[in-house]
């Protein structure tokens, strides 16, 4: 089994930085698995994860309370659960389903999605999201070898 990979997704816009912040905290904590940050074109994920067990961390909006942590795995199709809202580029759910169709899913794929609310340029993540970032970090450090 190849080394586990964690990829933080997002941008610097407020709560949307959640995935990136988790990745940075994991690196600072000396996580015993590889940690990457990824911004922009999500199709690039297919090249990043290749055949490694992978965990993705991103921000999401479901209507749940801010900072709620959702955990999904990609054993079954995600498209129905992750509405296709990404615009011109392929959204995360569609990239995962495209990978499934092409036979390029990693051996395991888990997504942690942190409920976000604020996406303004230059704004900091909310207190609820920062707490969730810390919780996801601890979960991943505790779960993975």
């Amino acid at each position, binding site marked *: 089994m190849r080394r586990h990979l964690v990829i933080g997704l997002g941008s610097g816009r407020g709560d949307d930085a959640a995935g990136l912040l988790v990745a940075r905290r994991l690196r600072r904590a000396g996580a015993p698995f590889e940690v990457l940050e990824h*911004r922009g074109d999500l199709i690039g994920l297919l090249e990043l994860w290749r055949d490694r067990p992978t965990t993705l961390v991103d921000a999401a909006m*479901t209507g749940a309370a801010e900072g709620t942590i959702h955990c999904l795995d990609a054993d079954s199709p995600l498209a129905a659960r992750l509405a296709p809202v990404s615009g011109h580029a392929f959204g995360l759910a569609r990239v995962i389903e495209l990978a499934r169709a092409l036979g390029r899913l990693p051996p395991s794929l888990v997504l942690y999605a942190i409920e976000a609310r604020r996406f303004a340029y230059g704004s900091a993540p909310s207190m609820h999201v920062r707490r969730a970032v810390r919780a996801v970090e601890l979960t991943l450090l505790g779960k993975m070898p």
Partner: protein
Amino acid sequence: MALRTVEVGYLARVEGEGSMRIVLRDGVLEEARFSIFEAPRFFESLLRGRKLDEAPDITARICGICPVAYQTSATQAMESALGIRLDDRLRALRRLMFCGEWIESHALHVFLLHAPDFLGYDDAIAMARDHREEVERGLKIKKIGNELIALLGGRAVHPINARVGGFHSAPHPRDLAPVRERLAWARDAALESVRWIGGFELPELERDYELVSLRHPERYPIDEGRLVSNRGLDIGADEFEAHFEEEQVPTSTAKHARRKGGGAYLVGPMARYSNNWDRLSPLGQQAAAEAGLGRVCRNPFQSIVVRAVEILYACEEALRLIDSYEPPEAPAVEAQPRAAVGFGWSEAPRGVLYHRYEVDVEGRIVSANIVPPTAQNQASIEEDLRELVLRNQHLDDEALRRLCEKAIRNYDPCISCATHFLRLEVERR
């Protein structure tokens, strides 16, 4: 692993949505409306008061798919305001980065967004199960376009290395060698793709568009040229607003552009190709002919074939530019601000992108005007829809919806263009 089923309404990084409404009353078309309801973004207003050298990076944020076009139009407008012109080496470098954008943007649209329409699939995911080889090829071509942008621009999306006057840094020739090798593969793959796409069955529709694009004395237009049309237009960037106007329409948060004293017109690959067939490479011309294209295209559904030809051309052109690359003496030309008005344009993958800025003596932006291709094509999109619906009203609602969605995607409109971006209402009274 236990699965927690969670309804995730949507992930972050939303890009906007469009809708369409068709009303038929007793077989008479009352309305065929393509609406954009993405919230206004006010970029022209927020540019006011900013320094002129901020415009390329700010306007690049308008689009994650064609930021190089925004940077190019903005830098060229500012350079015209400053009275500077880049030498051949710097302009070649700019054109090379732009080739990367054409490759990645067209590959995304052709392989993942539009091809499923022609092969009878709901989306690229369904198509990938039966056409894995072609989808993998498209993804690989796209990746090479992204790599080229990242190499010259510092990153693939919203590159950071372009600036007014040139670049912050220029690559060493040896830096280009790895991507050259991959571009050679992409050129061959693009040629194969033109043949594949040339085999698609295209719906019948011929329209008498005014085809508007840049035209360069020597090269197929990407980063510079005069604006021409098949109806005699031939203008410089400083004349654009004398010939074109934008208007607000109640059903769209994007403005509609029209020819002054005229009407709708078409920008984008089909206009570029039709006005510049003689500027294509011999291989591009040959591939186009083999794929069934004449020297002029008037069927909007041919746009997917033209995009495939343009991917091929962009790969060839990038290879030519790399092979002749000599590092510039300095990565940028410096200039002192002055009060002036500057005009710039380029051929974004979706068509002509015009920028105009007024700057003051301290180099601060007083006013800005940006006219993107999608605003210019909205009126043509609606005219295509009217024609299509009138010809195809015998189809049931589902078939008509599919046909109209396919027609809108001919334009690769730069709003939310995921496969299911469109909500269609058909009213038959």
